[in-house]
């Protein structure tokens, strides 16, 4: 196996996904197949090749430091699953 069951658990926590036991088994086997397919990349000689992050060969544009109107608070919160006053409400975050 290219990916262990512990790694599946680890990745699910990093990606914030609850997986049922049968899902875990299915994903492990599917990810394993996919990762095996990707082994072909090791055939490619990439020494001295620059990685490519995207197709546009320009530099990032700069915006002037000008303030534009924000949303109305009610627009900002219109899609909130839960709100209180003008804040988004979430379960208690314990540090």
């Amino acid at each position: 196996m290219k990916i262990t069951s512990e790694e599946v658990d680890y990745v699910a926590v990093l990606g914030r996904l609850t997986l049922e036991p049968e899902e875990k088994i299915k994903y492990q086997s599917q990810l394993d197949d996919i990762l095996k397919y990707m082994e072909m990349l090791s055939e490619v000689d990439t020494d001295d090749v620059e990685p490519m992050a995207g197709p546009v060969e320009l530099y990032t544009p700069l915006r002037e430091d000008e303030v534009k109107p924000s949303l109305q608070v009610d627009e900002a919160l219109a899609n909130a699953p839960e709100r209180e006053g003008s804040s988004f409400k979430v379960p208690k975050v314990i540090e």
Partner: protein
Amino acid sequence: MEYEPVIGLEVHAQLLTDSKAFCSCTTRFGAEPNANTCPICLGMPGVLPVLNRKALEFTVRMALACNCTINEMSRFARKNYYYPDLPKNYQISQYELPVATGGWVEIETSDGPKRIALTRIHMEEDAGKLIHDDQRPVSYVDLNRTGVPLIEIVSEPEITSPEEAAAYLRALRSMLVYLRICDGNMEEGSFRCDANVSLRPKGSTGLGVKTELKNMNSFRFVQKGLQYEIDRQNTALENGERIVQETRLFNSSTGVTASMRSKEQAHDYRYFPDPDLLPLRVAPELVEQIRGELPELPAEKRERFVRDLGIPGYDAGVLTADRDLAAYFEGTVELFPNPKAVSNWIMTEMMRKLKGEENGIAECPVSPQQLADLLKLIDDGTISGKMAKTVFEEMFATGQGPDVIIKEKGLVQVSDAGELLSIVNEILDKNPGEVSKYLGGKTQLMGFFVGQIMKATKGKANPAMVNQLLAEELKKRG
């Protein structure tokens, strides 16, 4: 075995731009929660970031002030972690290619000046704020601060004591404020510091296992937190325990650091180049332009005050710690060219008055012109030093010039020799017993006579002349 601490600091400074780093919302504080948000800083589906030019220029300013190398090409990367104050659940930051690398900051230590080397300075965006409910198991998310531009200044692990750490932070803070790119407010979080602390056997060069300290939101807490952590690690090592690499929170009410037992697994930020932003280029011409516009920095200024103006090192340090204070001092010296007298007055009377003031010298009601006028009046004997203190109090309270106050209160010093002489003789005539005791050798009675004269003149008599005249007249009666 004896151990020595090794400290590296990561400082976050909020940049004083008008708009956020990647969107056009205002960076102003104090609004209703989420009033300063838009689809971009809310991390709505489909939105894209565009970098604020000012944020870049401010970053370059600080990097040049810290002697960094500006990288002509750098890159934004995503730092991925889940937290409700981070709407995209990734932070736009820089990782492999920061805007600036290397550089140093000079600090004053008890052993003289020391250079603390920097690893890098990079740009990133701030997160929002969470407010925890005291009564119920809920937290509230306010994203107004989300996306405010930050720079992160990372030092090499070259700091060897909590005092040095504090000196380094003070130096950074005063540079940022000098450059007018950060307000440096630690309590409000616009200037924040995390520390990496480890111990190693004294004299060795390797690095021990480090802990990361967070939540030290004042210079005093940084020193306290570091000292606690150093002591804790020392005890642990002496007891043969191992130091665990972990993040620890400083609790300012107990003065203790405690491990963050976060449920989240080991941090795995999965940095990768942000595909929504292209590589960042800082043109050499822009660097040179910003270099040309840099103001004189606190360290240079301090040196100049000592060298050219003859100000003692400590005083020069205090005067230059704040760009506005230094400008105030220089402005006054221009009008009253006695730097030491100006410095003495600022260091004592002025600092005492400014202590409780939030905004320091910026909102001082006494202008450099008014202070220079006051010092001139002492110098030419119009008022005594003691009177001047009263006048200064009044100036500070009312914003009026010394002339007006002196006139209103009738505070002008009596220096007329004839007038004083008659008062002196009047007092001596009234107190024949004391005069004879004085002449019999009880010379400490001099103070009594002076006091009586001052009382009679309501404190306006020129003390030097009073002393002289008294001595002469007493001699005559002997």
